[in-house]
């Protein structure tokens, strides 16, 4: 039979674990990466990854974007509602460009890859809008 003190320590551990997880998960910092590939002037693949940061990000705020949130606190939903606006914001932050073009016997093939490396964003959710700021 477990003693009272023993169960107390287990409970303490359990509560600290919950507290720790809630603190880290409720942090309004997100890691976002974006990449799209254009092959022979046709969009081939596009991916936007959004995930909550599990560690506190370092750096100061750079550029800011305000998006209509319609009351939701889900960043993925907010971004999908304002997709074009968010993509142009990402473009203004800066994209890595890698372009390869080959012309074999005068037949041309090209591949362009635009990438936003995984970047930390601070997000403040309000009633009607979300304020997204890139950290650097």
């Amino acid at each position: 039979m477990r003693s009272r003190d023993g169960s107390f320590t287990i409970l303490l551990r359990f509560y600290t674990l919950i507290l720790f997880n809630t603190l880290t998960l409720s942090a309004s910092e997100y890691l976002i990466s974006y990449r799209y590939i254009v092959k022979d002037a046709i969009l081939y693949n596009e991916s936007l990854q959004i995930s909550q940061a599990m560690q506190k990000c370092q750096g100061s705020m750079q550029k800011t974007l305000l998006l209509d949130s319609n009351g939701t606190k889900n960043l993925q939903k907010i971004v999908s509602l304002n997709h074009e606006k968010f993509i142009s914001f990402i473009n203004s932050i800066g994209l890595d460009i890698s372009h390869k073009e080959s012309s074999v016997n005068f037949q041309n093939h090209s591949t362009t890859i635009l990438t936003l490396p995984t970047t930390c964003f601070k997000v403040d959710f309000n009633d009607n809008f979300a304020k997204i700021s890139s950290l650097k």
Partner: protein
Amino acid sequence: MRYSLILIVLLTSSLFSDTEQTMENMENANVTVVCPTTEAPSVLEENKDIRISVVGQGVAPMHTASPAQAYALAKRAAVADAYRLIAEKVKGVRVEGDDLIKNMMVKRSTVRTTVKAMVKNASVVETQFKDGLCEVEMEVSLSYSDFTH
């Protein structure tokens, strides 16, 4: 025979005296070596911004769900092309070429170009979509302060 010997002695002495003089001249002369400078004149000036404008082209895929989707996809491709053109203008292109010639005939001709860069603050100025081709005009302004850090 004597005369010839005297002549030889005189000639050799005159030759040595000439070389000594030239050596002295070389030592006394201030030689300035001029090397061709490789420094290109700076394009960016402190108070003048340079605006680079390009037109990127993109094509809509053959099978799309709607004309709106075709437009969106073509625009995305056109923006990528415009970014590539900006990178080419600002940073440059690496070009490699190979020609395979066999029996005095060109069997295979290959040209490869690569561009790698990072572009910030480029903005779309104008977008046109006609007959499945999307053209996007993009601009980026370069200032001296961007490159001082």
